[in-house]
C-alpha cells in the first residue's frame, strides 16, 4: 500500500513537471531552443500569486488569473526582446542558448532585488478533504495537480491538432521557411508559443505553491532543469511525451526518496535520462530523424 501511495505522490509532483515540460517542449519544437529561462517563469508566476494574495489581499481566483496572464505576457516580451533578433537573423543556436541563460540570471537577480533572497511562505490556497480510495489516502494537492495537468494537456492537444493557431504552430515547427511561404505569420506563431508555454508554466507555479507553500527567487533553477529533463525523456516536441516524461520523473523521484535515499534523487533522475537517451536518442515518444545524404 505504501508503494502505491508513493506512486500517487510521484504523479502529483510529476504533474507540475509535466506542465512546465510542455512549455520547454513546445518552444524547442518550434525554434530548437532550450529555453533556460522557462524555469524562472515558474518563479515569476509564484511571486505574482504571492503579491496578489498576500501583499494585496485580493481573492484567489484573481491571483490565478493574474499570474497566468502576467506570465503569458512576460513570455511574449522575453521572446520579443531577447530572442527575436537572433531568431530572425538565423544566429548560431548556441548564442540563443547563452541569451536564454542570460535571461534566466536576469530574472533570478531581479526578483532577488525586488523581494529579497530569503524564502517567502505562501498561505494554503486550495484545500479540501483528502480523497479516500480503498486503503489509500490521497492529499488534496495531489488530486488537484493530476486533475489540472490532465485537463491542460487535453486542451493543449486539442488546440494544436484542431485550431488554426495550432496548425500554424505545427507547420512552423516542421519547416518555418515553407510555413512562411504558405502565408503563415511565423513571427506571431513563435511569440504565441512562448506565451502559451509561459502561461502553462504559471499554472504549474500555482500548483507548486499549493503543494510546497514556500517560494524563493532561485526556485526555478532546479525545477526548470528537471522539467526540461522530463521533456527530453518523453521526446522533445511531443505533448503526450512531455506529460509522460513529467509523470515518470515524478514517480522515479518519489520512489527514490522513499526506498533509496533522498540524497541520490537527482542522480537517479539524470541516470534515467542518460539511459533513455542512449536507447532511444529522440526520447520515449520522439521521432527519429535522419539526415538526407
Amino acid at each position: 500500500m505504501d508503494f502505491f501511495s508513493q506512486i500517487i505522490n510521484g504523479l502529483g509532483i510529476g504533474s507540475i513537471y509535466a506542465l512546465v515540460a510542455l512549455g520547454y517542449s513546445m518552444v524547442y519544437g518550434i525554434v530548437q531552443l532550450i529555453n533556460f529561462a522557462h524555469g524562472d517563469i515558474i518563479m515569476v508566476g509564484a511571486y505574482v500569486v504571492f503579491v496578489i494574495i498576500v501583499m494585496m489581499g485580493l481573492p484567489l481566483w484573481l491571483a490565478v488569473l493574474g499570474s497566468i496572464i502576467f506570465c503569458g505576457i512576460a513570455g511574449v516580451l522575453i521572446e520579443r526582446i531577447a530572442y527575436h533578433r537572433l531568431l530572425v537573423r538565423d544566429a548560431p543556436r548556441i548564442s540563443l542558448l547563452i541569451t536564454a541563460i542570460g535571461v534566466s540570471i536576469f530574472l533570478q537577480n531581479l526578483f532577488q532585488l525586488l523581494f529579497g533572497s530569503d524564502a517567502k511562505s505562501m498561505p494554503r490556497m486550495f484545500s479540501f478533504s483528502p480523497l479516500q480510495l480503498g486503503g489509500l489516502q490521497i492529499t488534496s494537492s495531489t488530486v488537484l495537480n493530476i486533475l489540472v495537468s490532465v485537463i491542460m494537456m487535453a486542451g493543449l492537444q486539442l488546440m494544436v491538432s484542431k485550431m488554426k493557431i495550432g496548425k500554424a504552430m505545427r507547420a512552423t515547427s516542421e519547416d518555418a521557411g515553407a510555413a512562411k511561404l504558405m502565408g503563415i505569420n511565423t513571427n506571431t506563431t513563435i511569440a504565441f508559443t512562448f506565451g502559451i508555454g509561459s502561461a502553462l508554466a504559471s499554472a504549474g507555479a500555482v500548483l507548486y505553491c499549493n503543494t510546497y507553500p514556500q517560494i524563493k527567487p532561485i526556485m526555478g533553477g532546479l525545477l526548470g532543469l528537471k522539467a526540461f529533463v522530463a521533456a527530453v525523456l518523453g521526446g522533445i516536441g511531443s505533448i503526450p511525451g512531455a506529460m509522460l516524461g513529467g509523470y515518470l520523473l515524478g514517480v522515479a523521484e518519489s520512489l527514490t526518496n522513499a526506498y533509496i535515499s533522498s540524497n541520490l534523487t537527482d542522480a537517479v533522475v539524470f541516470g534515467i535520462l542518460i539511459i533513455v537517451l542512449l536507447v532511444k536518442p529522440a526520447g520515449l515518444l520522439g521521432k527519429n530523424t535522419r539526415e538526407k545524404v
Partner: protein
Amino acid sequence: MLGISRKKKISYVVNLAIVILLYLVFTMLIRQGIVNSYYSDIMNMMCINIIMAVSLNLVTGLLGQLVLGHAGFMLVGAYTAGLFTIHSGLPLPVAFPIALVLGGLVAAIFGVIIGVPALRLKGDYLAIITLGFGEIIRVIANNLTITNGAKGLYGIDSLNSRHNLTAMFTYIFFIAVLTIFISFTFGTSRHGRAVISIREDEIAAEASGINTTYYKLLAFILAAFFAGVAGGLYAHQIGLIDPSKFDFNRSVEILVMVVLGGMGSITGSIISAGVLTILPEALRGFASYRMLLYSIVLICVMLFRPTGLLGRSEFSLMKTVDKIRGAVKGKKQDPASNKEG
C-alpha cells in the same frame, strides 16, 4: 614560402618573450608586496578559468559540440589531486606535480567513460547528456565518505609559503601558457583539422576517411584532461573544495566565457575568461546589482554580436602590428598594393 615560416618563427619568439616578461613582472610585483594576496589570488583564478575556457573551446569551438558538464571534469581533477596530496605522505613540492598529472589523467578516464556513450548523440542532446553526467558526478561526490560528502575536502595545502609567495602563481601561470600553446598546436595539426572537419560536416568528414568517433573522443578526452589539471590547481589554490563549487552553474559560467569570446577562438576564450574573472571582483561595490548587470551585458553581447567578440578569428600581435603598419604605409603609398601581403 620561406617568408611565411620566418614570420612564424618571429611570432613564436615574440610571444615567448611576452610570456616571460609577463611572468617576471608579476612575480616581482608579488614579491615586492605591490600586488597583495587578494590580487594574486584573482590572478591565479583568472589563469585557472583560462585553462577551463581554453579546454572547453576544444570541444565547443573546434569540435562544435555543446557541453554543459565541464565542471564535472574539474571536480574529478580537484578531488583526485586534493586526496593525493593529503594522503600520499610525500612532501608537497613532490606530491603537487604528481597530483596535477593524476588529476588530469583521472578526469581523462572519466572523459572516456562519459564520451563513449555521450558522443553518439549530437547537438542539444549531447549537451543534455553531459549536463546529466556532470550532475551525477556532483551528487556522487556529495555522498561518498572518501570525498567527505557535502562538507567538502579541507586541509589541501597551498604550495605558497611565507618564503615563497609565487610558487602557486608559477605553476598556474605556466600550465595556463602550456594549455594555450597545446590547443593552438593541436588545432593546426592533422588531428585538429580532423576535429574541425567533423564540426563542419560530419558526413563529409567520414567520407574523407576521418574516423569521426575517434577524433570526437580525442577532443573530448583532451578537454577533460586539462579541466582535470585545472581542478587540481584550483583545489590547492582554494584549500577547501566541496561539490557545490562544481555544479551546473559553474559549467555554464565556463561555457559563457567560451561563447562570449567567440567560439573556436582561443584568444577570444582567454580574453573573456580574464575579463569575466576580474569583472565580478571589480563590481563588488555594487554587490546586489552585479549579477543583474552581468546578465544584461551577456544578453546584449549575444544580441549584437551573436558569434562572440572575436568570432572564429584569433587575435595576433604580429598581424595587428602588420595591419597598423600597413595602414600607415597605405596612406602614403598606393592603398591597393598591400592587399596581397
